[in-house]
């Protein structure tokens, strides 16, 4: 009697076979890929040797005045690119994100907005930079435009998801007062999502700052060009100076962003 009831009972924690097979397949593929790409221990040791030589040639960082001046110009331009791209990027992301949210926008609009976001997300900022450099010429403008595109791709997509997760109850209550759609947006939706939006913005500024050092490599302005040039001329001490400044800048930004997020809790 007891044995029959036990066999007929379902398992408490049934095995999720699709998930398990998925993990196994992923592991097997990773091993296979590593074997075809000639990734071996000997190769790694050889690489570390070269890395040590590189690090040795970097020290001490170059602090010659003319170099610093050049670096400062580049860094400030990068900073400007990041700030402008973030500002205009989030300005465009806000309406785009609302339009993409399926719980607020009609189907045709959210589909169109999602399509636009997908296009923005399709390419790495460097690829987009190359396009803009060809389109509007060398300089900061190309970098700014490229980063605006990537900002829209990232912030609008995640913001739309935030909006879709909002609590519908207060929205219903405000709608019940006879409020117009825009008033519902202002008083019931925005209070729920703005803190997350500020968080996304701050995160994206971080990301834009890092990417703004890179768009310069393809002619999009900023510190990227001097950095790339220094690499190619084997001026590794200059490279180190630039890298240290970038690290300091990113850390400063990290610190500031934590503060900003706390204010908007």
């Amino acid at each position: 009697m007891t044995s029959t009831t036990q066999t007929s009972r379902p398992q408490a924690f049934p095995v999720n076979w699709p998930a398990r097979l998925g993990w196994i397949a992923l592991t097997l593929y990773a091993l296979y890929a590593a074997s075809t790409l000639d990734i071996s221990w000997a190769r790694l040791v050889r690489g570390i040797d070269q890395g040590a030589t590189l690090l040795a040639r970097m020290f001490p960082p170059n602090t010659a005045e003319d170099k610093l001046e050049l670096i400062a110009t580049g860094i400030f331009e990068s900073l400007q690119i990041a700030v402008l791209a973030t500002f205009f990027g989030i300005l465009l992301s806000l309406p785009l994100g609302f339009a993409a949210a399926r719980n607020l926008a009609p189907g045709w609009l959210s589909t169109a907005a999602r399509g636009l976001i997908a296009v923005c997300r399709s390419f790495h900022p460097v690829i987009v930079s190359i396009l803009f450099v060809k389109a509007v010429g060398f300089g900061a403008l190309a970098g700014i435009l490229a980063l605006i595109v990537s900002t829209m791709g990232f912030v609008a997509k995640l913001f739309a998801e935030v909006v879709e997760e909002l609590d519908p109850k207060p929205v219903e209550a405000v709608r019940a007062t006879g409020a117009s759609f825009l008033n519902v947006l202002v008083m019931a939706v925005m209070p729920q999502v703005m803190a997350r939006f500020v968080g996304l913005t701050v995160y994206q500024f971080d990301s834009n700052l890092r990417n703004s050092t890179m768009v310069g490599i393809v002619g999009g302005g900023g510190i990227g060009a001097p950095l790339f040039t220094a690499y190619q001329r084997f001026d590794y001490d200059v490279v180190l100076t630039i890298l240290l400044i970038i690290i300091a800048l990113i850390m400063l930004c990290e610190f500031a962003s934590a503060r900003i997020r706390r204010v908007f809790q």
Partner: protein
Amino acid sequence: MSAPRPMLAEPVLSVRALRKEYQPGKPVLKDISLDFAPEGVTAIIGPSGTGKSTLIRCINRLVDPTAGDILLKGENLARLTGRDLRNARRRIGMVFQEYNLVERLSVMENILSGRLGYVSPWRAFLRKFPQADIDRAFALLDAVGLGSDFATRRADKLSGGQRQRVGIARAIMQEPALILADEPTSSLDPKTSVEIMELMGEIAKTRAIPIIINIHNVELAKRYASRIVGMTGGNVVFDGPPEALEKHHLSEIYGGEDWQ
């Protein structure tokens, strides 16, 4: 079923043959017809899933009825769309089971939400509400028993009872012709439930706003309502004063007798 109550005055709200089918052919509300006097508390009782909430939500069109008419002072809400519907909603206050306050906003902002049918989005964004509205919101804070110290507190810092008081203040802020309350005490402890019902009864009396309340608690309904509507399976099976509600009615509404 008891005799229909005589209507003393022109009803503020007439529900006529109201039908709602979420899935075609499976009506949740089966041609409900009810008149509501422009005064007093009406309690709608009935088991869960019997359409009480749907009925309340059809009245202010948070849910669209499948058929039937909803006459608010003669205007048929069932036929309205867009701006006309929003203007009609301004005259109906609503109180919710889970309060439905905007958690991140202050108590004052939540109460002033009751005026959103009257201010532009730009003014709402800048919180430039008319001074008269702000004064009235402060007065309401006192009237619902919170006091003006609560004005700047964030809604998520309040207890359940305090939140429901804010919810009630938001509804009165609309200067409504009618207040709908969807299980306003179901999330509250027994003592707070009594206080909230007390407050609603007082509002109905002193401000002459008729209130329609969905409620699970039959005792509270009998104590605070002047009229009880019993629903089961999408039909009205009892309609009368609390004194007329007897055991066999309750058996008919809820089924069985053991629970009584």
